[in-house]
């Protein structure tokens, strides 16, 4: 546990001071243990293709998966 908090401190320091001179974008904002720290990602159905309709997306993926089942076309 000790080593870990040390790392997070180091990362914080490096991000805010150490690399700023190199024109590097700080990588870590606020560190919260055990929780994803990066950018939020969109849900796969949140796009113009599916317009937020999760059920439609699920149906599309399920249908697509059936292509892998050649028994659907061959008995």
């Amino acid at each position, binding site marked *: 546990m000790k*080593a870990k908090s040390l790392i997070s401190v180091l990362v914080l320091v490096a991000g805010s001071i150490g690399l700023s001179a190199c024109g590097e974008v700080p990588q870590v904002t606020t560190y919260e243990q*055990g929780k994803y720290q990066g950018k939020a990602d969109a849900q796969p159905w949140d796009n*113009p*293709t599916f317009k937020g309709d999760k059920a439609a997306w699920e149906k599309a993926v399920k249908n697509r998966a059936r292509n892998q089942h*050649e028994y659907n*076309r*061959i008995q």
Partner: protein
Amino acid sequence: MLTKKAAVAAGAGRRLRNAAARIVGQTMDRRAFLKRSGLGVGAGAIATQLPYNLIGSAEAANTAEKRTGSGNEEVRRTICTHCSVGCAADAVVKNGVWVRQEAVFDSPINLGAHCAKGAALREHGHGEHRLKYPMKLVDGKYQKISWEQALNEVGDRLLKIREESGPDATYWIGSSKHNNEQAYLLRKFVSFWGTNNCDHQARICHSTTVAGVANTWGYGAMTNSYNDMQNAKAALYIGSNAAEAHPVSMLHLLHAKENGCKVVVVDPRFTRTAAKGDYYVRIRSGTDIPFIWGMLYHIFQNGWEDKAYIQARVYGLDKVKEEVMKWTPDKVTEVTGIPEEQVFKTAEILAKNRPSTVVWCMGQTQHTVGNANVRAMCILQLVLGNVGVSGGGTNIFRGHDNVQGATDVGPNPDSLPGYYGLAAGSWKHWASVWGVDYEWIKGRYVSQAMMEKSGITVSRWIDGVLENNELIDQDSNLRAVVYWGHAPNSQTRGAEMVEAMMKLDTLVVIDPYPSATAAMAAMVRKDGVYLLPASTQFETYGSCTASNRSIQWREKVIEPLFESKPDHTIMYAFAKKFGFADELVKNIKLEKDAQGWDEPNIEDILREINRGTWTIGYTGQSPERLKLHMKNMHTFDVKTLKAVGGPCDGEYFGLPWPCFGTPEMKHPGTPNLYDTSKHVMDGGGNFRANFGVERNGESLLAEDGSASKGADLQMGYPEFDHVLLKKLGWWDELTEAEKVAAEGKNWKTDPSGGIIRVAMKNHGCHPFGNAKARALVWNFPDPVPLHREPIYSPRPDLVEKYPTHDDKMAFWRLPTLYKSLQTKVKDISREYPLVMTSGRLVEYEGGGEETRSNPWLAELQQEMFCEVNPKDANDQGIRNGDYMWVESPTKARLKVRAQVTPRVGPGTVFLPFHFSGWWQGEDMLKYYPDGAAPIVRGEAINTATTYGYDPVTMMQETKTTLCRVMKA
């Protein structure tokens, strides 16, 4: 601890250890081995990647802002160009750039599946390692020249040679990677040039199959289909490594296996196909006939033969049986090295699980007994009653994507398109289809004799250059060679090939990837070599014929890259230079391409093929029908290939030839050849009456009751012509116009298709008659297939018992050695004790320049290697991963990585045949045109292969020769 959850960490550690133990604890596999040994290659290759990394290509494409959902994307359907399975792929094109590749789940052939090559097709949209513009060898270096200069200089040089030494002084090596229309146009082109000196990959791939199988029962092609293998209850793979050579065919086989099909693999090597089989038999390379006769011995002994079938549909089996019964189990074991119980078990599996099918590839064909090997396989299937049966047949997997089509209608030295041969009647038939005067064509040749004489084969062009002029059967030796889509490293005797290249006056290479030929030539010459950039099949359009005879239509994906031109456009440009442009395209429209070049219309060429190719039923497959199939793939049943409903209802996918009659007759194509359980208008058939009606007083026609379903003639009958039609009283069923056209003609030469229509549609009869299959092919050197030891045999004792043929003079215009050479090298196995054999890798195709230029594939196989058994390796002090030398009796030496593996048995080494770019230990990089060297280079096995040819087709022997190995 650096982990957040101690419990998870422990679990992860355990899993890591387990996984590591599972992977590391096993024998090292080929790729692990190559990864470890090939670091240098990889590092170099990364540098070559830089110009077209993701960012570069994405910007060029100007598409990455939004990869999906935007309006100007187009989907073009194409067919993979890397093997004969015929996998469909959808290319997504945006602003003219091939941005994505999608699976075509609708295809009944591949159901969306691809192997490494098929899944990497889109790299053709990059083509970074291609030849980008015409080049010329000047003082040992390739220099860029313009197309105009190239066409003029090449044209002038060839015309000068024609003037001085006659048209036969040139040699034209066409391609199985041309589409049907280009392959066909090239045969016509070469004919108008005035020579039969043309050939393509089929010579060195399945020529023995085509000749052997056609002479047995009519057509020299795969009888059934990849799909139909799902109906098999047992499958014998002999000399085929489908898992690497035809990976997507395994989709059908493994599906069949899952449903109970027993899979037997017979091979000198424990292949990846063997790994998927139920039963593996290791055979000594080149002893297929004793093994097959060994099986038949047990089949006859146990009464497993199909007596009724043999009686009704097979001629001459008694003679074969006499030979078979000489092959008692002890003799079979002595020659093949296979214990009797394994021979028995294989025979039993095939006999007791009918319908059973057989699959063979180059392991059977590329031998000095190739034609006999394949006939023995046909006989096995006839004895078991497996031919003309769904789930049975001889499933002969062809190699290139259009090798079947190029064989059918392309540049063959012994035939005009459609296996018409070279007789005067054949020339007249085609002259009328082409709309040119027969006399004019004849005038292009030296004489009528040369016009009707088969040309030199691609396997022997080097002898056409090097052989003493008095011994060759044409006026001049070869002075110019045109490599038009063919690799040099796929032909044997590479060491002699560079001598031939040196001696040539002119060498022209027309290819997207001409570099192997280019480098070999530059190694020994200073000038006289021209490289012309051709487009790939993704930059043009047209039809291609898969192994199962289905014809598929490719749409053009992208415009030709760099300065390349499609092959048919180049043909027309040369025809203009040579002065027969008008004759070449009499019935064919010309279109202007973006640079103002004349491009012959592909649809028109196919229609011309349709109008002339009656023999094998390439007549019903109009461009319109083929395109309709490509659009409606989902309506075809995967097992039968038959459309259920929809616009193609009742037709078979790709109208597999024979698709008889005119397109209007709507023949559905033939999924399984010789299948009497179906009506001929539903793809049924029977064996072809192509060898007369009787022999020594014995009828060759099929017995009563063995005709196809619903035929008006329920007995054997000869092929149809105007006389037979009149005798049967069916002549008046022709229209008046058809009568005029059909008078004096037979079904193959009647330009109206009327004879075929009346026979098939009105009477359910097969136009080519109904005969027995021939177990005895009396016109071949060994009418009954006989075992003959390879010329370079590891068994001098057996050479005495089973010697090869006598030498031949003027065989395909060349003297050909058999016994004199075999006698001379009889004891050479004392110095060269190991059998050297070759085969495929899944990542590469053919000579490999194209696929080794594709980084996605090249990364997976970075070095040429040799598989050697631990015993032989230890005897020579060779360690796994070492460089080793492989030396053949020609003294050519190959420097390759050693892969020590029990995959090959003691006494045999295996080398893949896709490599080139090293010459006896030296990297040839400096000889390549700048920027056109493939990423991966290595020794070509054929640098070291030896002399040996099939006595019917001039197929080269690649699978059984000798070598010795030593640590490098």
